[in-house]
């Protein structure tokens, strides 16, 4: 059965869920990804996304040992994401000379905590599913949460577009115009942390950062301004998601990895074409 036949098969709602998840995620990848890209905080977002595994492992451990019965992994992920975002944000603002060391330490410590707790969790918990995701397991509740986060991100990006643009382009000048650049930075990190938690279901912890940068990076070659970058990045992400899902369905390959490979191949091809044109 082809991917497009499966989409309309009443017995396969998970395929439609996967497509809707891809489209809803694309708004985050396009809008938030553009902000992450122009603010050059992809490294920070990467640290947050990997630290999330610590929260997932802890939640699985607490739930399986009846310490906190029924605690969903996403709750632990959210707590760890927000704590790591706050720590990374403060370190980035206050201790610039040690920024790289501290951020990489948080990245590694978060993942290590996750692996340790998952190893001590009774029964079988596969860290691979969290690291690489499985969009075909997206639930209706996940879609609602993605939709709510989409609306939040669009409203914030629209309302504070001048502040975001100015603080990304020239932070010092933005401060002279009374923009609270630290607050803008911390809110961006916080929203990115929440988005990473929801998006890791789709492409997994390891690859979420790729999707936060590749569609936006590709659209940056075509856009004339940040708003255009967000819009084109969203369209690119939708295209990557649909193409990646169709290919992964047809070839029976992991969907998250294929989506990222399609996005990466497109980015590299466009970059090579641009470089060739300049040469």
């Amino acid at each position, binding site marked *: 059965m082809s991917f497009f036949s499966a989409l309309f098969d009443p017995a396969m709602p998970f395929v439609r869920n996967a497509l809707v998840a891809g489209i809803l995620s694309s708004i985050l990848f396009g809008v938030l990804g553009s902000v992450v890209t*122009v603010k*050059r905080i992809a490294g920070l977002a990467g640290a947050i996304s990997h630290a999330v595994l610590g929260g997932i492992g802890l939640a699985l451990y607490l739930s399986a040992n009846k310490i906190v019965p029924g605690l969903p992994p996403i709750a632990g992920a959210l707590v760890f994401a927000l704590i790591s975002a706050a720590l990374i944000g403060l370190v980035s603002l206050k201790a610039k000379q040690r920024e790289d060391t501290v951020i990489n330490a948080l990245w590694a410590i978060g993942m290590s905590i996750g692996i340790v707790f998952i190893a001590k969790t009774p029964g079988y918990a596969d860290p691979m599913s969290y690291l690489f995701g499985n969009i075909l397991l997206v639930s209706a509740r996940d879609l609602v949460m993605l939709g709510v986060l989409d609306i939040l991100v669009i409203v914030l990006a629209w*309302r*504070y*577009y*001048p*502040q975001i*643009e*100015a603080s*990304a*382009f*020239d932070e*010092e*000048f*933005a*401060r*002279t*115009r*009374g*923009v*609270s650049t630290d607050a803008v930075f911390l809110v961006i990190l916080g929203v990115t942390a929440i988005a990473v938690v929801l998006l890791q279901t789709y492409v997994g912890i390891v690859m979420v950062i790729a999707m936060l940068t590749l569609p936006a990076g590709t659209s*940056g070659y075509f*856009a*004339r*301004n*940040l708003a*255009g*970058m967000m819009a084109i990045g969203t369209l690119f992400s939708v295209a990557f998601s649909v193409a990646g899902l169709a290919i992964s369905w047809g070839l029976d390959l992991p969907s998250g990895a294929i989506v990222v490979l399609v996005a990466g191949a497109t980015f590299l091809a466009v970059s090579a074409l641009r470089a060739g044109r300049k040469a």
Partner: protein
Amino acid sequence: MNLGNSGSLRTGRGTSEAASSDAHDAHRVARDAHRVAVRFSGVDFAHREAEVLKNASFHVHEGEFVALIGPNGSGKTTILRLILGLASPGAGSIEVFGAPPELARGAVGYVPQSMSFDRAFPISVEEVVRMGRLSGAGRGCLKGGCSDVDDALEMADVADLRDRPYAALSGGQRRRVLVARALASKPRLLVLDEPTANMDEESERRLYAVLGSLKGSATVIIATHDTDFVSALTDVVLCVNGRSGDEAPGGVARHASGPVERVSSGHYGGAILQVLHDTDLPDDARCVSCADGTAETAAPASAGAAPGSSPAEPQGGER
């Protein structure tokens, strides 16, 4: 406290209109000269325990064109950052238009020294200039048709570049765009940090033509590491960590300036003055009484300037 612009900058008006308002401008310049724009009183500042400023005191009147000179690392940028409220003094006080710098930001336009920017950042010249209209969490001037932005583009001579990507401009064009961005808020005080660094002569000439058009209508403070010469537009020369040897380290001294006999290579797009480091002037050199903030301009700071010469008609050697 409203310290915002009061329409103090001249905008791109026609010749006849400019001529008819000359008398009005002259009156306004004289009135503004009574006010103190920036006052440093006993300011100390240290960066990571390295003393940059020590008991620095000076003041600048509204409408003055000030050259803040000193060698690299002397503390010029620190002074500008203190004026902008981007840094706080360890001791002493700073007033900008009679208020703490943080409250006066709306009245100050800033052109940074060398803005490192992401060349892949998609943004047009007009969008960069629109940033100048930002104020806190307000929406600023998002759409086209904002007359202040149009005026600033015209004044800085970059209107024809408005739709061009910022990254596609030359260094000199980018610097003028940043001047336009600073002018978009119609500032009462324009602060420029090394505006002609790495700039070719033509770009320098065009930039100083822009600054010359602001002469007298806004207070202008330019930081430069050239300690020998300043633009002939200059009314006041402030020397940071000066080299006359008389002033204490970390201080700001007011030095005289005079005409240049002969200059082999020019700067500042036209007439220049030579800084006379051996001639210290008192901080109240241009005042009758400055202590209460009701300063009155008394005489040009330029030692060699012709008596009675207008500040708007600079003296000095042509290149």
